[in-house]
């Protein structure tokens, strides 16, 4: 599939703020099965300085520095992306074997398993989640089957409730409430997998949304999406699973970045001087070009 993606964010401040320094993590990384062209980024007003950074996980960061007083900032990220459906591995190692394989890999780059083995800031261990996940992740179960079973249980047992959680809600809280949005589901699943020594990563990206039958696709009604990448051994590598939609990631998923949790790939964060509240409006349009 080929898509044109247009992602517009408007940050606004009730009173002007100063010395705003903002990280944008919007430009998709190079990813197997994806080829991107015509990437454009429009920023208004023009920052005093910009700096491109890569990493430290699988993420592109653009660091902006706005010296002047700022009351609104508009960022439009757009690109055309061809997505080929990934090959789904037929067989993956048992959880016991995978755990040993993960510890034996002699690399620590951003796609190696080691960086995704431990608890991270927003994905802290929670005994209740490990306990809940135990029935899906038995030792001799194949790791991909176990992970898919977890995704299915999240899909069935958790309510999708926009606004019930925020980007700083912990997986433990989302788990107790059994509700949330894609970020919460992804992070609960990550905590569950890591509790059993399975490397798991947080992926941010876009999802093509299919309009209800007989309706037009609404331009700009989409949003960013998040799912989980599970490390399934040396041979299979990282496999994407979307617990919000109970499926493997495929042609409809466009990967932007991968990190340990939301904080590593947050599309926008930063600091400014001032007491004003920041508001953010987002419009995302994922249009198939057929």
């Amino acid at each position, binding site marked *: 599939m080929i898509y044109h993606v247009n992602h517009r964010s408007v*940050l606004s401040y009730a009173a002007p703020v*100063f*010395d705003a*320094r903002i*990280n944008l993590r919007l430009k998709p990384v190079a990813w197997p099965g994806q080829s991107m062209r015509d990437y454009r980024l429009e920023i208004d007003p023009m920052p005093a300085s910009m*700096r491109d950074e890569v*990493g*430290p996980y699988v993420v592109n960061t653009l*660091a902006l*520095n706005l010296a002047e007083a700022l009351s609104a900032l508009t960022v439009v990220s757009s690109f055309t992306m061809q997505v080929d459906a990934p090959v789904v591995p037929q067989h993956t190692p048992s959880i016991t074997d995978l*755990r*040993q394989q*993960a*510890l*034996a*890999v*002699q*690399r*620590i780059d*951003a796609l*190696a398993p*080691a*960086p995704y*083995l*431990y*608890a991270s*800031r927003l994905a802290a*261990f929670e*005994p209740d989640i*490990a306990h809940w996940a135990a029935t899906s992740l038995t*030792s001799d179960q194949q790791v991909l089957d176990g992970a898919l079973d977890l995704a299915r249980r999240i899909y069935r047992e958790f309510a999708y409730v*926009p606004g019930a959680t*925020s*980007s*700083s809600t912990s997986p433990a809280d989302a788990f107790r409430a059994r509700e949330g*949005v894609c970020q919460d589901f992804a992070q609960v699943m990550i905590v569950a997998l890591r*509790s*059993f*020594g399975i490397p798991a990563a947080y992926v941010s990206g876009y*999802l093509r949304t299919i309009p209800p039958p007989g309706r037009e696709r609404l331009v700009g009604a*989409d*949003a*960013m*999406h*998040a799912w989980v990448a599970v490390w399934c051994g040396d041979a299979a590598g990282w496999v994407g699973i979307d617990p*919000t939609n109970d499926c493997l990631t495929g042609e409809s998923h466009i990967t932007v970045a991968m990190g340990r949790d939301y*904080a590593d790939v*947050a599309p*926008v*964060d*930063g*600091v*400014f*001087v*001032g*007491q004003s509240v*920041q508001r*953010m409006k*987002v419009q*995302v349009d994922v249009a198939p070009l057929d």
Partner: protein
Amino acid sequence: MANQAEDLFGPGPGADPLAYYQAGEPGGDAYLAAQPQVADAWRSFVAGLVAQGNGDLARVRGFLDRHVDELGLAYRLTGDEQERAWPLSPIPILIGAAEWSGIEAGLVQRAELLEAVLRDIYGDQHLFADGHLPPAMASGSPHFARRMIGVKPPGGHYLRQYAVDLARGPDGSWRVLADRTRLSIGVGYALENRLALSRSTGSLLGSIGARRQSDFFDALREGIAADCVRSDPRIALFTPGRFNQSYPEQALLARHLGFSLVEGRDLMVRNSRLFVRTIAGVKRIDALWRWINTRDIDPLHFDSRSRIGVPDLLQVCVSGQMLLCNWPGAGAVESRAMSAFMPRLCDRLLGEPLLLPNAATWWCGGQDERNYVAANLDRLIISSAFRQPNALMPDGSSRAGAELSAAERAVLLQELDRRPMDFAAQEVVRLSTTPCLDDGGIAPRGFTIRAFLTRGADGQWVVLPGGFGRMSSDGDLRTSLIGEGDISCDVCVLDSPGSEQAMLAPVLVPPQVRRAQGVLPSQAADNLFWLGRYVERSHQVARVVRTMLDAGDALQTETGMGSAASRLARLLERWGAVPRAASAWRPADIAGAALGSADQPGSVITQDRRIRGLARLLRDRLSRDSWRALNRPLPRYVQGDSDSITAAADQQLEQSAAFVRLTADTMSRSAAWRFFDLGMCIERASLMTQACATIVPGQASAVDLAALLDLADAQAVYRARYLTMPFIAPVLDMVLLDPQQPRSLVFQLGGIRDHLETLPSLREDGLADLPLRLARQLYVRAESLDAETLTPRTLDDLLQALSDLSNAISKRFFLEEAATPERDGAQLLS
């Protein structure tokens, strides 16, 4: 009394108080197993202590406690509100020069090894690729910073400060218990212990040949300076702030080393350079000694939730324009599990065996190691591999395997199956004992030593001779620096008389003469200003309380309070020292509330809390005497009892006057002192004007006016000058307009103007900054007022102008509004 050995009253001065000292295993006691010369020194030191206490060791303990107190030595345990006094035993641990040089060589080797490991994991990463170190050993550490891969530190040194916990085994061999590459917590306490001990024991330490520590601290300072880009560098100690457990230690180190003590909000990054905000504009910083975890140093590059860091600090590091030590990410090698790899890494990286073994360690991430640990739980100490919390160790610490219950054992085995990499195990290390003076006399206690290393100007490691000794009450010394019931002690390295070390005359290079300690950071100026304001406010409230009780006694009629007392009560209301409508209460109750009601913003106790809070932040600038004056408890009084409240107010007035005098007498007449005095002047001017507006609303009796004179401490001067009872105009002239009266408004305004004229200006056009212009206007205006025609309206105008002036000072000299890290800015979820 000729017989000095013993008499009817126990051992006399000069006898050997260690003669009857016994420990479980003689080989396992540092004193009993010491070389004869060292043991002699131990005996003569303790005998010297006994002589100083006239035969009573408890008295020696008392001397020492007083010195500890005077040094402001204190600490907090997690959860403590108040600082605790530092527990210090007067008997140091003594180590002979020969034994120490062996330890020293082992420590330096270990420092070089850890440096080499850091260079590899943040550089070429051969250790991972060649299978000498599992990558999960790095990524498991919360102090590993992926971002720092490929970023080289200036001078090439990842480590500049390093601390090691050492234990002496029963066979006399030394072992490493733990590495500290993140923060050298304890180095300031080691310094303080030495200062306290040498002050309280006179020449005793010198007489036994204790090697001095000053070379180490010189090396620390010069080592940092040597790798700075500029030749006369500005170096600062980067603190998380006063709520940090080791803040007192940080303040002491900054003062001792001549570094500025800065918090994140004092600092800012511009064009890849780091600056500190000062009263003279921003000034460049060349090096930071950080006492903050890597993840908190920069909200843009590490944890975006950090409120104690500096946005873009990492950018400055990467540009090579500033030295940050230790380098971000250096903490990655201090995890417990790392010890398991040290023998092999030493062989691999240095091509030699470890000189100083560490306690045998197993990391359970390896299958064989995990199986060994699971099979030998009873003989091992089980730890969280990276000091992270887990089901059995909620505080990320260690448990003796033998002490686990059956249920806990089952949980551990299950965890070892699911996440073996979270656990490490160590052999049980038995600790030697050392003579310790506690309440019951001299008894053996198990000890560990924290040793400290720093790099000197030539980049070579320098070891602090001795270190920080810890003696435990329960034998468990694996946790934090100091715990409930632990006692600390000094550790001295002894040079035998005539040895090279002892002969070596101290090489003293006189420093360049200088008269100021750098430019005053805005934050410190702000704190000093408010310290001055609160001290003055507390003083004035106490004064009003006293005057009110006096006036109440003198004039109280059967129907209620006299007019003067009730006017003073209204003044206390106006200042927020007592609740609204409190003026209807009995004077003693009003007075009690003004002194001791913690929920009133203007009460003495509230001011006192603020003063202590600010003083903690200014610890590096206050003299020992001011610090001590400040830390005296508030005077006590009996609720509702006028006499005792009057006495308490009197005592409070004396105490705050003592603090002001000690502070003013000892602070150099630098900008720091000016801000302190500026705060006092503004507060005094404002309070005096408010007092006039409240007590003289159009008309006032002689008693009211006498009370006003009393607040200005001018009764006697008035009587001498006018030889009559108080009248409105002469009184107002004396307390407001007379420039010769040290408590008058005009006197304060003159002081304010003089201070502002001396403080640096930011303008390049030669015109005065706004605060100075306002101060000049206000002075001229007040000076030209006529007491005969003063109206309440004029007083209100003056108060408004004072408040504008105070705001202008804040805006010009103090920090901008705090940067607000925006953490929830992105609601991009579906």
